[in-house]
């Protein structure tokens, strides 16, 4: 056995498992969430913002007069609290939750399809979900229950798209290329339908850019709560499938021989990822590339074990979207641009990088 081929000197290192990275990521995110309300469309002094936050968090015990010394608007301190707490923090929490949902969905899809280029946006699941939500808005279905119907229709759109992709992946032409092309075609098609719907909506002008480019603004805590609840439940369920995803990377047959019901698990994971994506995009529109980039970042820093990749992708996704929001406010003070523009700016080159790196190596097989 001494004659066995020695590993080449530049062979990739075994990807270890670094769970502590998750703690680090969580800490970073916490700091980010705490300081992000300083940035906003109107200028509020940073120290005032932090005082308001601590005041609100402590239930009024700390800083009984949080606005002391600040230039208070006409509405008084309550107005400032509303800006910081209700507007900014709800927007920030939405960024966190949506980013987490997209991140963990992306990680799951990459695992299910054994394809590093899978992502809810590129596969059209985001477009499907957004289209579902837009239908509710455009046709004014159940105006009173929009908080319920919007996510429900988004689920239908996202899951429907998910199943079309599953069928494409299962067909005998189910190569990586087929899968991505199906996704790209679906994504474009659904976006086109969405644009048409919005441009000729019976209710008059609805902002097309809002839906197609993703937007964090104009939500309230109720909507935040819905997204938060769904992403938390579906995301937590997804995160329990790390071990199965590890085994699925060996191929569905090998995984099954080891005890994973491959077919059932893959369908279940696709369903959960679609639900998570749907919740994420139901109120915000299409936000691209978060699901693609986040899992890769985690793999780089914490190893490729899906038991870490999934929660890690949620944390990185949350941080990514939060950073996009903050950067947008730094770059263009006074306006909150559609958040999808920023994620695409960072994500598209990353996608290209992955594509070209893939051609160099050949670590990808068919799904």
């Amino acid at each position, binding site marked *: 056995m001494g004659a066995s081929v020695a590993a080449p000197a530049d062979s990739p290192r*075994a990807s270890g498992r670094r769970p502590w990275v998750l703690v680090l990521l969580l800490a970073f995110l916490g700091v980010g969430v705490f300081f992000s309300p300083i940035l906003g469309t109107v200028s509020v002094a940073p120290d005032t913002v932090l005082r308001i936050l601590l005041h609100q968090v402590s239930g009024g015990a700390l800083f009984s007069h949080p606005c002391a010394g600040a230039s208070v608007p006409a509405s008084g301190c309550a107005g400032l609290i509303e800006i910081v707490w209700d507007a900014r923090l709800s927007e920030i929490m939405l960024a966190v939750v949506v980013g987490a949902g997209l991140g963990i969905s992306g990680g799951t899809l990459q695992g299910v399809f054994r394809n590093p280029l899978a992502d809810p946006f590129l596969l059209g699941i985001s477009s499907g979900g957004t289209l579902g939500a837009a239908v509710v808005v455009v046709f004014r279905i159940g105006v009173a229950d929009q908080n319920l119907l919007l996510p429900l229709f988004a689920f239908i759109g996202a899951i429907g798209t998910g199943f079309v992709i599953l069928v494409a992946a299962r067909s005998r032409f189910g190569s990586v290329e087929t899968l991505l092309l199906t996704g790209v075609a679906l994504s474009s098609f659904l976006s086109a339908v969405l644009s048409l719907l919005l441009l000729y909506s019976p209710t008059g002008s609805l902002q097309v850019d809002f839906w197609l480019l993703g937007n964090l603004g104009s939500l309230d805590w109720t909507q935040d709560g819905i997204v938060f609840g769904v992403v938390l439940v579906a995301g937590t369920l997804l995160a329990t499938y790390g071990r199965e995803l590890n085994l699925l*990377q060996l191929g569905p047959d090998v995984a099954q021989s080891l005890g994973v019901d491959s077919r059932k698990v893959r369908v279940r994971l696709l369903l959960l990822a679609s639900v998570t994506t749907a919740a994420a995009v139901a109120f915000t529109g299409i936000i691209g590339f978060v699901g693609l980039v986040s899992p890769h970042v985690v793999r780089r820093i914490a190893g490729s074990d899906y038991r870490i990749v999934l929660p890690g992708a949620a944390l990185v996704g949350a941080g990514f979207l939060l950073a996009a929001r903050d950067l947008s406010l730094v770059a263009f003070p006074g306006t909150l641009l559609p958040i999808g523009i920023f994620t695409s700016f960072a994500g598209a080159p990353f996608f290209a990088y992955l594509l070209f790196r893939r051609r160099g190596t050949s670590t990808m097989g068919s799904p």
Partner: protein
Amino acid sequence: MSGPTDPALRLRQVTVRFGERMALQDVNLEVPKGQFLALTGPNGSGKTTLLRAALGFLAPQSGSVELFGSEVLSLSVAERARRVAWVPQEENPRENVPLLDYVLYGRYAHLEWLQGETARDREAALRALRAVGLEERAEDGILSVSGGEKQRAILARALVQEAPLVLLDEPTSHLDIAHQLDLLTRVRELSRERNVTVVAALHDLNLAARFSDRIVVLSRGRRVADGAPTEVLSEELLARVWGVVADLRRDPRTGAPYLLPHHLVPPAPSGPGTFLGKGPVHVVGGGGSGAPYLRALSEAGYRVTAGALHLLDSDLETAENLGALTAVEVPFAPISDEVRERLRNLLQAAKAIVVAPFPVGPSNLPNLEEVRGWLGRVPILLVRRPSGVEWDFAGGRARALEEELLRGGARQVAGAAEMLAALAAEPSVPLPQ
């Protein structure tokens, strides 16, 4: 989980169809516990399909597959994994997972939901790595080890799965000869130490004969031979199932039979005038009488076979120089049953038989007796003997046999040129290109 008398694997009347194609047809098979069974057969004979049916990857159109007494498809996927482990032909991992983690994947079916691997699992994985000689490399990534090491890691994973039945699908087809021997030796040792039943699909008949207790041969989805390697392996089997002419020898050290493949058996005639390839043409000769005909045939493009001949006969030298298959007897001895059997195999493959004007004695008389058996089945050409030269030293029996051949339809030819012309005229022995 099973009765003591239940076999590890039992197939009853299993039929699997893929569209029009019959992958398995009414296959019955029982593998007792502890057996090392080699499953063999040509490409597309149904080996992999049989293994996949045993793993529950596919549902047969009819028949039943049982693992230790339970219908495989009625078991949960996890329960199947606790009963049967699989070592595939090749695995293409995409992440550079440390070998230890790769082996730990085998514990999945033994863990509760969300339960992490315990220290016991890690110890089991390390033991398995030690059993396959990879304990030093536990922390190396699966993508950075060699093909042989990867197959051993997969074997270690199957071991920690603690399944009493292990199925291997061509586990050595991507390995060099040293690693083939290494892997199968380990499998056999482990199966004996742990009383694990092994079913291995193996292309290589010599490896199958050497390592298995039993060989099952599949051909076109049917079980066509089954038994101990010494019983099953024969030149006849190779010709019939694989279409290959081979010599059967015996390994002097292990006693295992081994086969030395020579060339393909030409396709059987399917009608007059069908193109049948260039022979082979069998030449019966001896004492140098066959050499001119062997050479003439070979130069004309026919493949030739010769025999039975005695060792040191000059015809034998000629035949071997021409690359001919031969049946050989030790000098001066009468033709033994074994050599006679070999001669029969050569005659069976022959498209035509040429009887050279050789001196016939009691020891080589069986040559003519065997040729007689092919009358009416292939063209037989007798080379006219020079007059006045005594050639029948078998007390008239040789002369009687030749006359019988001529009466039965054998043709007489005057020399090599006439022989070639006669062959060319035969519809079933077309002209060489």
